[in-house]
């Protein structure tokens, strides 16, 4: 755009050409002259004389006139220029000049603004224009503009509206001061900025009116002050649209998936839905899909000052499992809308998930003189149907008070069958202890309603806030089950000396209700310090009835009193907390103390007896933060925490599902108290791409609640919760990441965790010392264009010594590698992705089986249509057919390894169709 001046003004120009023609001056010349007032004929000092390039109005030279009103510009290259002279309260003088070899002399006279009259042009209106009251409305489509034209071009076509080369708009003879978009001010109130930044084809109507002053709008009294305003009404259909995706994949045999999802929006109102079927994985929607087509899950974000931020995404957590063979169908619909002062988000979902799985486990219990090994195998089938309704609604703002309501109602129906077999032996003597085989089946109906209401208000006084958060939960669960089991116990010569057969039906009905209110009030004490008060009250009730019947074929059904019970639990929690916070630029610290009380009561309907336990808790804490620089932080903190025993630890409910593990109560159980100290230092150098972090912690627990186990000659263990002293934990870590070479980042981390854990085995105090060390390295490159990769390698060592048998220490290494490489051929719209997940465990005395798993998943994707609508994808899952899930655990004198099966090698070919109008799905953006 050439921003040339259109000289409408009547100007006086005196032009002298002095004839000095010297060939050597052909390239550079000069301009000299004077500036004077037309009327007073007085030379003007400090007038601004500017030389602009004629073709694009670019400023080339700028000078001020001397005290005598003279100016000189040199050197200046030959060419076409505009001279612009300005002086406060005088009209600008502009004229075209051509600089040749000859120096130019300009004597310029300028006028005060008062001498210049404006012309007003009024044109007749045509049919595409309607006059409504004092508003003139133009229908944008009636005026032809070129495709991709901006609004400025559109306005130029409209009668009664003029746009000059500077972008200034005149409507009905008056200058337009404001351009609004849909009645709201655009980023800039500068009309030229708005009209150049908006496309003509999104505009529905152009309305021209006189806007009353804000004062007049507020008071309702017309003060006569009006300014010409243009409102651009945008087309509704540019705000309305839809997008979606259909996907179908198959290996042309047993595996396949299908997805259909869509999101239709109208302004901020959104209706989204999906239908899926899949027997290759557990998630029905991936993260981006859940955001665009589902209810979005629960996202909590925390943003610190200086760019540090944290995003927490919490699912329901109970959609569960990742092992076995899944088969699922799901459907959902979400409605959401946003208003000026609130938002609504409501969704209904259905999900059916059937999982068939095989599990085997190996465990070893270390005893003073020997050890017991237990091997089990089980197969299970779980069929779960879930109906869920959620709504999250919000009104208000922080300063006027913000209300938030969340409601979640769910009905879950599940059927579960497990076939289990296992046995224990003593490896030292080879003696068999027991064998067990059992089948359990349960069908459960679990109805829940969870909700929360919160209110938050920020007062006008800085730092004074109040927030009240209340939660409530109701549950109604019924379960019917079968237990058929045979347990054999052996003597030293491997002869069965005792056989238990169990054939029972069980029923459970449980009603739960809970509610809590948490109130936090902050009061500023001066500029940098605050007092924070917190009070929480919580009530919970649980009425649970469990009946067990002996139910053998051909025999009458008999209630087993020892395995039947009916209890009512009630809990009342009260806690108050006061803390002081001091925050200045580089330092902030927090010190506080709290006191709480907990009252547990239990009523046994069978014996008509009740029991009440009271605890008083003490909760001190202190945190110190030091931030010497941006992106450098040091934190030191202390927390003291009281842990109450649970009522089930004091008085457990007898359950015979696993007759080899029985828990008995302990009425004398006391609460434990833990002191925890921790520190953390981190520094991030952005320019150097260098990150360093150190951290460490230590905690010790007095009266820690742990188990005392008595294991009899048959391998049956009886467990009781007891208090012990001397438990502690420690940990330290170091992380370092830097740019190795041209965008390739190298990171390393190392750390150690350890602790002492005391428990009691067959009456003997057992002290377990555990140390685990880890070392990891990462390599990554984010090229964005052609190739991205990251790879990590971790090695960890676990070492445990139990005092009851020093010789039987456990010490093993495990190694893990995760990698991902992406190749992008953007022109060919072809993408290759390769990910690996390798786990190698060291063989050891404790874990005789070597469980190495090499998982490699290659995939490629190609956009196959010109408009990006069709994509084809080929992926191979578990190329080397190795998949299984191994979990190793070491706690005190008990070590275990559990192996679950999962889907192995298959190749899946998918076709994806993306459709959209005026919109597209949002992505995470990184």
């Amino acid at each position: 755009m050439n921003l040339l001046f259109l000289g409408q003004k009547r100007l006086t120009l005196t032009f002298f050409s002095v004839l000095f023609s010297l060939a050597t001056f052909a390239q550079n010349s000069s301009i000299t002259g004077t500036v004077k007032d037309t009327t007073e004929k007085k030379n003007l000092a400090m007038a601004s004389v500017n030389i602009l390039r004629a073709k694009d109005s670019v400023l080339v030279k700028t000078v001020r006139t001397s005290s005598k009103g003279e100016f000189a510009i040199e050197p200046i290259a030959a060419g076409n220029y505009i001279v612009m002279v300005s002086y406060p309260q005088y009209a600008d003088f502009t004229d075209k000049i051509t600089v040749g070899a000859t120096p130019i002399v300009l004597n310029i006279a300028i006028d005060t603004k008062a001498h210049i009259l404006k012309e007003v042009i009024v044109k007749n209106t045509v049919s595409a224009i309607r006059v409504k009251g004092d508003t003139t409305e133009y229908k944008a489509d009636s005026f032809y503009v070129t495709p991709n034209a901006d609004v400025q071009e559109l306005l130029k076509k409209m009668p009664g509206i003029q746009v000059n080369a500077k972008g200034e708009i005149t409507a009905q003879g008056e200058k337009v001061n404001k351009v609004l978009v849909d009645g709201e001010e655009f980023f800039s109130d500068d009309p030229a900025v708005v009209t150049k930044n908006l496309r003509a084809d999104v505009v529905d109507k152009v309305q021209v009116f006189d806007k009353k002053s804000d004062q007049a709008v507020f008071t309702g009294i017309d003060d006569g002050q009006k300014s010409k305003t243009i409102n651009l009404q945008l087309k509704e259909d540019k705000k309305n649209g839809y997008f979606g995706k259909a996907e179908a994949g198959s290996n042309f045999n047993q595996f396949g998936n299908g997805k259909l999802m869509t999101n239709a929006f109208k302004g901020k109102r959104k209706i989204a839905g999906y239908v899926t079927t899949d027997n290759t994985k557990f998630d029905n929607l991936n993260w981006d899909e859940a955001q665009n087509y589902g209810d979005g899950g629960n996202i909590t974000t925390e943003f610190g000052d200086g760019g540090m931020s944290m995003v927490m995404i919490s699912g329901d957590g109970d959609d569960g499992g990742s092992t076995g063979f899944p088969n699922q169908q799901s459907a959902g619909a979400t409605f959401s809308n946003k208003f000026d002062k609130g938002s609504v988000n409501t969704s209904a979902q259905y999900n059916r998930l059937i999982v068939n799985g095989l599990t085997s486990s190996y465990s070893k219990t270390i005893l003073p003189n020997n050890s017991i090994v237990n091997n089990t195998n089980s197969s299970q089938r779980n069929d779960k149907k879930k109906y869920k309704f959620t709504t999250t609604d919000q009104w208000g703002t922080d300063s006027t008070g913000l209300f938030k309501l969340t409601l979640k109602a769910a009905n879950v129906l599940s059927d579960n069958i497990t076939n289990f077999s296992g046995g224990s032996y003593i490896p030292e003597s080879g003696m068999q202890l027991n064998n067990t085989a059992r089948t359990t089946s349960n069908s459960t109906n679990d109805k829940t309603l969870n909700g929360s209401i919160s209110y938050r208000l920020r007062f006008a006084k800085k730092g004074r806030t109040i927030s009240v958060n209340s939660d409530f939960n109701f549950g109604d669960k019924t379960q019917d089950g079968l237990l058929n089991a045979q347990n054999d116990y052996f003597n030293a010569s491997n002869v069965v000396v005792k056989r238990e057969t169990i054939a029972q039906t069980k029923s459970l009905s449980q009603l739960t209700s809970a509610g809590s209110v948490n109130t936090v009030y902050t009061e500023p004490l001066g500029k940098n310090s605050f007092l924070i008060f917190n009070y929480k009250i919580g009530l919970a009730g649980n009425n649970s009835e469990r009946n067990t019947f002996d139910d053998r074929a051909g025999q009458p059904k008999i209630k087993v009193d020892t395995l039947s019970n009916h209890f009512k639990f009630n809990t009342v929690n009260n806690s108050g907390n006061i803390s002081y916070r001091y925050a200045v630029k580089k330092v902030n610290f927090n010190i506080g103390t709290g006191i709480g009380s907990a009252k547990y009561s239990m009523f046994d309907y069978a014996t008509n007896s009740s029991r009440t336990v009271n605890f008083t808790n003490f909760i001190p804490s202190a945190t110190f933060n030091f931030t010497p620089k941006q992106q450098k932080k040091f934190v030191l903190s202390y927390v003291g925490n009281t842990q109450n025993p649970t009522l089930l630890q004091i008085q457990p409910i007898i359950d015979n599902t696993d007759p080899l593990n029985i828990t008995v109560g302990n009425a004398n159980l006391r609460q434990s108290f833990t002191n925890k100290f921790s520190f953390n230092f981190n520094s991030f150098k952005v320019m150097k791409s260098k990150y360093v972090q150190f951290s460490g912690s230590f905690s010790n627990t007095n009266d820690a609640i742990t188990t005392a186990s008595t294991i009899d000659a048959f391998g049956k263990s009886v467990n009781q919760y007891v208090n012990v002293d001397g438990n502690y934990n420690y940990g330290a870590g170091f992380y370092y990441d830097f740019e190795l070479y041209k965008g390739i980042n190298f990171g390393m981390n190392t750390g150690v965790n350890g602790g002492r854990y005391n428990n009691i085995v067959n009456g003997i105090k057992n002290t377990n010392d555990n140390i685990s060390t880890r070392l990891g390295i990462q390599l990554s490159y984010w090229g964005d264009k052609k190739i991205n990769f990251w790879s990590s390698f971790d090695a960890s060592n676990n070492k445990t010594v139990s005092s009851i048998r020093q010789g039987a220490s456990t010490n093993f290494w495990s190694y893990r590698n995760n990698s991902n490489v992406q190749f992008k051929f953007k022109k060919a719209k072809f993408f290759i992705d390769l990910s690996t997940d390798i786990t190698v465990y060291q063989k050891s005395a404790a874990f005789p089986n070597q469980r190495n798993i090499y998982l490699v998943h290659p995939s490629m994707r190609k956009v196959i249509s010109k408009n990006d609508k069709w994509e084809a994808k080929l992926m191979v899952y578990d190329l080397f057919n190795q998949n299984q899930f191994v979990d190793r655990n070491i706690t005190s004198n008990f070590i275990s390894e559990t192996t679950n099966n999962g889907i192995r090698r298959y190749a899946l070919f998918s076709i994806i169709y993306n459709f959209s109008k005026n919109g597209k799905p949002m992505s995470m953006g990184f």
Partner: protein
Amino acid sequence: MRIIYIVVLTFIVGTSAAQVNFINAGKITYERRISQFAALINAEAQENIWMEELKKQFPKVVADNYTLQFNNKESFYYLTKENPDNKYINMIFKPTETNYVNQKHESGMVTNAASVFETNYLINDSLVKYEWKITGEVRDIAGFECKKAITKICDSVVVVAFYTDQIPLQAGPENFNGLPGMILGIAVPRLGTTIFATSISLQAAPNYVLPTLSKPKKSTIKQLDADLVKTTKDWGKEAAAILWFLKL
């Protein structure tokens, strides 16, 4: 109508007859406003889920006050006072009291103390040259009639400036300079950023003590550009916005 016209005319002629005051030394207060989401979204050209979350947590606009002290030779532009209540979506928006821009128009040089992430740059270089297009549009800023001029930074980012003839020093906020008078307003639509003067007071001479930067890295504008490009090259789409902003 005619009567009013005459009254206005007399008034204007009356002032024009009086001596026009050019301001050769003084103190200007600017307000820098950043529409934080616009600044990042415009560059990315696509909204994302992350941004939706940010919108819930951060204010749309953050404002900071800057001071520019000048005489007819040089100018000092610096943050008046840090505002601890401001919540910046990105640390590059957060200004620092130890930063300043000292434009020295006699020598054509600039000294710029700029804290970029963890590095404190102390730049000594020639004044940045801008190619200004003069549009002739006028508007009033802080009681001064200003003319509009347009330039581009980083090849594509349009910067709109408003300058007044009444302050002859060819300086302005940040590195901006080279217009026929003092720049009283800057608007960068793509970064959602404006720097507009809110008040101007007369003052005999600048009285500004240059703050001492800790561990300053002596550098040039070219070197800083190279460092920034290197740092942000793997930052994805947001890098563009950050680079543009730091180039203001």
